Each structure stands twice: as C-alpha cells, then as structure tokens.
C-alpha cells in the first residue's frame, strides 16, 4: 500500500526554473525522506526531515513539512538538466516501516 502520494505525477520545466513537488501522507510519521532516482539507477538520498522539524535545506534543495496537513514539499531551485529524474518521498512511521510514494517524474529541458 502507498502512503506517500507525490503530486504532480510528472513535471516538465525549463532549465533555470524552480521545481516544486508535493507529498501527502495519511498517518502520523516519525520522519520523511526524499529520494532521487535517475533512469535505471538506484535511489539517492536527498534530505531527511523529522516530525519535529518544519524546514530543511541542502544546497539547491528545500524541504518543508507540515504535520497538521500531513504534507511535505520539495523545492529545487535553479534547476539543471542533470536534475531530470524521478523523485520519491518515503514516510517513516513508529515502527520505522518506510512507505514510498509513486514518485514525481521531473524533466528539465535545456
């Protein structure tokens, strides 16, 4: 079963633009992680945000978490062609069972 649901399912933007993708979940979580997956490759961890945190930054990435709305967003600023990938959120519950969403497929056009 999928708990995290990413939105939109697909996103196409021009290089230099910002990309925002959202993740909604259903039950209480301990933390939420964002991953990137390039075509045919393994998942690369981007950011982990814990339930008592509201915002985290890493380079051009900004993640927010709103536990009252059970949602998180990932913002990629000044996107590059190399950011083209699928992005997944994974929610960690009390039993640390991580459930991944279906992903947002981002395409950055040069």
């Amino acid at each position: 079963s999928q708990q995290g649901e990413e939105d939109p399912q697909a996103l196409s933007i021009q290089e230099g633009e910002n990309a925002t993708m959202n993740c909604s979940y259903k039950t209480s979580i301990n933390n939420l992680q964002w991953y990137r997956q390039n075509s045919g490759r393994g998942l690369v961890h981007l950011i982990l945000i814990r339930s008592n945190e509201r915002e985290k930054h890493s380079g051009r990435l900004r993640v927010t978490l709103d536990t009252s709305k059970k949602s998180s967003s990932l913002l990629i600023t000044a996107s590059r062609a190399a950011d083209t990938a699928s992005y997944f959120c994974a929610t960690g519950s009390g039993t640390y069972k991580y459930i991944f969403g279906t992903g947002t497929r981002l395409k950055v056009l040069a």
Partner: protein
Amino acid sequence: EAGVVQSPRYKIIEKKQPVAFWCNPISGHNTLYWYRQNLGQGPELLIRYENEEAVDDSQLPKDRFSAERLKGVDSTLKIQPAELGDSAVYLCASSLESADTQYFGPGTRLTVL
C-alpha cells in the same frame, strides 16, 4: 567508503526457476532492507532486518520468497519458483539504525520469461 553492493545487476530466468540476489550493506549498518520496485512505481518493502533478526517481513510472499542475513552483515533474497509477475528491480538498502537515512544499492533487475 563503499556503498551498498548488490549482485547480480541483471538476471534473466525462465519461470519456475529459482533465483537469488545478494547484498552487502555499508560497513557498520545494523539495519538492512529489501525492496521490490515495479516499473513506474515506488519501492515496496519486502523485509527489514535489525542485525540478523527479521523485524518486518509482513510484505514478503513467504510461499516463494525467503531471505536470510547471516551474522548480521550480508543478506540473500531468494525466489523459488519464480513467476512472471516477479519481474521487477530488487533493491537493497542499509542504515545505521532504523530511524536513520537509508542508502540504496544499484538494484538487481529481474526478468522472468
């Protein structure tokens, strides 16, 4: 530091044949995960180990899937017999502890003919 190592990277087998996947986690990581990822979907957890103990195998189809993690380090996931619907990418991940960041291996792409 070496990442999570998986082998083989690709496997093509006939249905009803057995197949095994191997994973070597990052040194010192106590938690090991096996996921299955179907095309266009996110990974789905099959089993999670804390050291050598399987603490969550609720999603593992136990009639044909088995896994082991001897000595709390390397792990093997086996399918016997394989079915057409088992075609997917099998991902291994590890973390220091369950609450920590998971690091994924490159995966094994299984094709069952």
